[in-house]
């Protein structure tokens, strides 16, 4: 059965191997380029030009790192569509289920061998690719990257392995239900894409209860925000991000220690031409704002939770698949 599984998988395996090799070469080259640029331009930057060096570095690699991350995100989808969905439908369509399920092997065993081998291969392929990308983009991520970012989080370290297993089983189970290759492929792609969109936009932030804390408005806080401005209710700070954390508030009201808003009139008192002096004056007002976030040190916990969640879903799908294949129609 192992021989047959691998024999039937040969074409897909060759394609995967070719793609993975090409990507690996690209990632290794990119990795060395980024490392080289990092040591020469960033580590060795002249104090005055460090900000612009950082900017140039970001500009040089942003597109490549983002694109290759998106490609990695597409790998599990491809696995689900091209390995998962046709696994059973091809047998149904060519009627070879009637050949293979009448050999001296139960369907349960047939499915068990296929699923085990191909899930392991899917996870390995995706895992290797993720590992390479994580290594390749590590300097970039360290300097610029937003680790919790939708694309970055899902294309680094261990979570992609969970996606790969899940996507493969999703494709297989849809194939078992739909029984026709093309509709199964389309449905698997649509469902997996939907999950990939829902995960960062709606679900991931609830994996652990977020932390809400009061942040003192000082020079450092202002430097970590995008913008500070006023509306009719008072001052607001937009886009503040704690180092390495995942911000869940994009805009919050700036308040006094007693909770009353910091108004335009009060801000007028600090109106000075010198930026430095103005900031010091504002800081002295003992202002704060509320900030909800997932702390930086939760990154690995999030990676593990998401990996476990997707592996759990994979197990559920597997159980369903075995139950389904035993039903004889």
């Amino acid at each position, binding site marked *: 059965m192992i021989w047959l599984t691998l024999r039937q998988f040969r074409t897909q395996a060759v394609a995967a191997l070719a793609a993975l090799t090409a990507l690996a070469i690209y990632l290794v080259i990119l990795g060395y380029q980024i490392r080289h640029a990092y040591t020469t331009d960033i580590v060795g930057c002249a104090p005055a030009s460090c900000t612009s060096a950082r900017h140039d570095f970001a500009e040089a690699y942003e597109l490549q790192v983002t694109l290759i991350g998106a490609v990695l995100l597409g790998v599990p989808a491809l696995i689900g569509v091209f390995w998962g969905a046709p696994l059973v439908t091809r047998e149904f369509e060519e009627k070879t*289920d009637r*050949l293979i399920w009448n050999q001296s092997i139960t369907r349960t065993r047939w499915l068990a061998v296929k699923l085990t081998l191909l899930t392991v291969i899917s996870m390995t392929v995706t895992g290797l690719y993720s590992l390479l990308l994580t290594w390749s983009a590590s300097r970039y991520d360290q300097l610029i990257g937003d680790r919790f970012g939708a694309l970055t989080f899902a294309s680094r370290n261990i979570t992609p392995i969970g996606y790969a297993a899940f996507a493969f089983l999703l494709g297989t189970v849809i194939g078992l239900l739909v029984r026709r290759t093309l509709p199964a492929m389309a449905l698997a792609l649509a469902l997996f894409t939907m999950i990939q969109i829902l995960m960062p936009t709606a679900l991931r932030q609830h994996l652990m209860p977020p932390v809400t804390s009061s942040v003192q408005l000082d020079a450092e806080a202002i430097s970590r925000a995008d913008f500070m401005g006023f509306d009719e209710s008072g001052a607001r700070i937009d886009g503040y991000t704690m180092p390495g954390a995942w911000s869940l508030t994009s805009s919050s009201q700036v308040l006094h220690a007693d909770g009353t808003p910091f108004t335009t009139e009060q801000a007028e008192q600090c109106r000075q031409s010198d930026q430095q002096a103005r900031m010091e004056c504002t800081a002295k007002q003992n202002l704060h704002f509320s900030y909800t976030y997932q702390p930086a040190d939760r990154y690995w916990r999030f990676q593990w939770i998401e990996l476990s969640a997707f592996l759990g879903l994979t197990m559920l799908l597997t159980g369903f698949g075995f139950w389904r294949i035993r039903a004889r129609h």
Partner: protein
Amino acid sequence: MWTATIETERLGKRYGRTTALTDCTLRIPAGRIVGLVGPNGAGKSTLLGLTCGLIAPTSGSIAVLGNRPAAGAAQLARVGFVAQDAPVYSGLSVADHLRLGARLNPRWDMPLAQRRIKQLGLNPAQKAGRLSGGQRAQLALTVAAAKRAELLILDEPVAALDPLARGAFLRDLLDFVAELGVSVVLSSHLLGDLERVCDHLIVLAAARVQLAGDVADLLAVHYRVTGTRADLPAGAEIVHAEHNARASTAIVRSTGPIPGAEHADLEDIGLAYMTRTTEPLEAQR
């Protein structure tokens, strides 16, 4: 008494509202070559699918060689099946198919498989997708046979073959079955195909078994009666009658002899049982 090859009790299969097979009670003794005939859509593939365990019954019960079909690997090893259109893996070579059989069947007979492939003149390196319909049917049969099952089920094995190839295929099958000593069930919508090979006949029509029995027994009790049929002996039953302007011909079932009537041949008997279901009851009287 030996365990029957196939034993069914009020077996039925429905697909939603469509009845594919209903009230099927059969007992097929061991060692027979069974012909299963019926028009297209009569339920032949359903009955064969139930026998090899590809599908499960919605009502009634079925035992094959004394066990539930496809109950486990051991039961699967005892039954060989070639589905309609003889599906094979088009991307795998002939040799790959033999290898597949060898890996998945504990009693695989590789010398037999290789000998057959050689006799048939198939190139082991040829992809199965490039074989002709007849060659594909032969390859599928080889895989099923080399499994060394006790019961071989063939669903419309000759449907895809031209008349010349049909004869050759069936002759070859007969030799082969004698060599292996297996029971065989093969289906066809044409009784003419099976007449010369089977020694047990089942006629299916309109999802029901119309007739079942050993060919010799069936031939003994069926008569062909022409002209006026005034005096049929008691217990005789008209299976089907055809009338034209001059005379009428009837196939009659009778345990006692009918004076002046000749025995009907198998094709007439099968046809009579198949056609009577398609006509209203009135016409039969």
